């Protein structure tokens, strides 16, 4: 059974020579006949499949299309061609604490963030105490979020996110924030999700955590898949390419 099926997707970005973002500039542009922009293919003919319960890593240099790919899976961006089919409940962790409102209390924000992640109020009620216990923030539940330190903010967001019990998780570097203790907590939780046979797509520059979490990986370069398969092999290809580049320059 595949949880994610990506069929031949491409994504093109338009980079205008002059950014026009008002009606006024567009009218001027029409008069002067400037519509020129450059096209940039962030992804080109990418196809792959992720099975249920599998963790897939995506690696590549900056600008190779990793985040674009993840955003397409998260249905934030739409591909220009090709199709994506996703199965089950998906949670995208492109950023933690999406929808948090500084003027509201921690308690209210937990309910808001949970509903962003598609949870019902009753489901949140059941895990409410666990969320605050895991985040170690029980005594701050009635404090306004604007008074939280960035570490507290992050812990609350992460704790809420992991209690949303999705079937598939899309993770983009969120583990790379916070102090060492927090990162360890995140790694433990990811491994637990893996043991519970959740589907994970993991984008990271941290090759060690990719190796630890994912059996299979994809190496993206300039919007195309270079290698796909066993993580060890993919990482060595990636490192070989990085080596080659430093030799050339």
């Amino acid at each position, binding site marked *: 059974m595949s949880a994610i099926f990506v069929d031949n997707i491409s994504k093109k970005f338009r980079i205008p020579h002059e950014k026009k973002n008002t009606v006024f500039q567009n009218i001027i542009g029409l008069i002067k006949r400037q519509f020129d922009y450059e096209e940039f293919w962030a992804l080109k003919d990418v196809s792959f499949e992720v099975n249920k319960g599998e963790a897939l890593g995506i690696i590549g240099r900056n600008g190779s299309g990793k985040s674009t790919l993840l955003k397409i899976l998260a*249905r934030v961006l*739409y591909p220009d061609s090709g199709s994506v089919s996703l199965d089950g409940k998906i949670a*995208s962790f492109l950023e933690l604490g*999406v*929808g948090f409102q500084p*003027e509201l209390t921690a308690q209210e924000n937990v309910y808001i963030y949970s509903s962003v992640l598609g949870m019902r109020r009753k489901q949140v009620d059941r895990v409410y105490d666990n969320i605050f216990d895991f985040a170690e923030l029980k005594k701050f539940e009635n404090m306004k979020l604007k008074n939280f330190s960035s570490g507290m903010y992050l812990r609350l967001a992460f704790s809420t996110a992991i209690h949303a019990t999705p079937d598939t998780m899309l993770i983009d570097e969120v583990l790379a924030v916070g102090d060492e203790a927090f990162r360890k907590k995140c790694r433990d939780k990811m491994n637990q999700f893996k043991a519970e046979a959740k589907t994970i797509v993991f984008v990271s520059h941290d090759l060690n955590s990719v190796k630890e979490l994912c059996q299979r990986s994809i190496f993206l370069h300039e919007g195309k898949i270079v290698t796909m398969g066993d993580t060890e092999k993919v990482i060595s290809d990636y490192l070989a390419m990085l080596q080659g580049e430093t030799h050339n320059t």
Partner: protein
Amino acid sequence: MWQYRELIRNLTFADLKNRYQNTALGFFWSLLSPLLLAGVLYFFFRHIFGREENFAINLLVGLMAWRFFTTGTASSLGAIVGKAGLVTKVYIPRQILVLSSVLANLIGSLLEFIILLPIIFALLGHLPVTVLLFPLIHFVYFWLIFGVGLLLSSLYVYFRDVNYIWDVLVNILFFCTPIFYPLSIIPDYLLPYYLLNPITQFIGIYRDVMVAGALPSLYSIVIVVGFAVAAYLVGSLVFSKLQRRFAEEM
């Protein structure tokens, strides 16, 4: 969208809480501006139109109805751009952001009209039975505003001066709508065009059912329902086309 009803509710109440600064008094503060405007308009125009029947009440009803339109469209205009995180970092049906913003305004407007009822009662000596039709009219009005909100909020992502343009249009519309003057001062040759303005028709209907105790004419019902349906269809069509590239444009 139904499966996200929890989110719609949360965003609506968060919006209300932010607007009224978490206090019950916040709502009364928000009433201050339309009441002051009503007072000023009454003070200056009573000498000219004061002999019109129920000038003061009609002015208040007109202003409250107008207010739902301006605050509803203005706050939904920024509903997408103002919640960038919910657009670029996570998937939710994006109409929700506009819907919850208009819903928060709907609740605010309902409260304002409820406050209006005892005032009407005090000034008129009775409340017409036709006031029971109010929820129905308000529901149609809500769809018009939601439709306009969908259109404006999606255009605003691409054109960041839409808010200024809309401000100007709304100001012009204010003077083209019989809020502080009676319809009778409009010359006959202009009247047919004048009556095509849906806000004129809405305000007329509110005054009919809340003050005059009359049923709205079939013509005005056709106009308001027609505009509400058209605004919603156009708004959601444009929105669903434009929303595909929201995340890139923000």
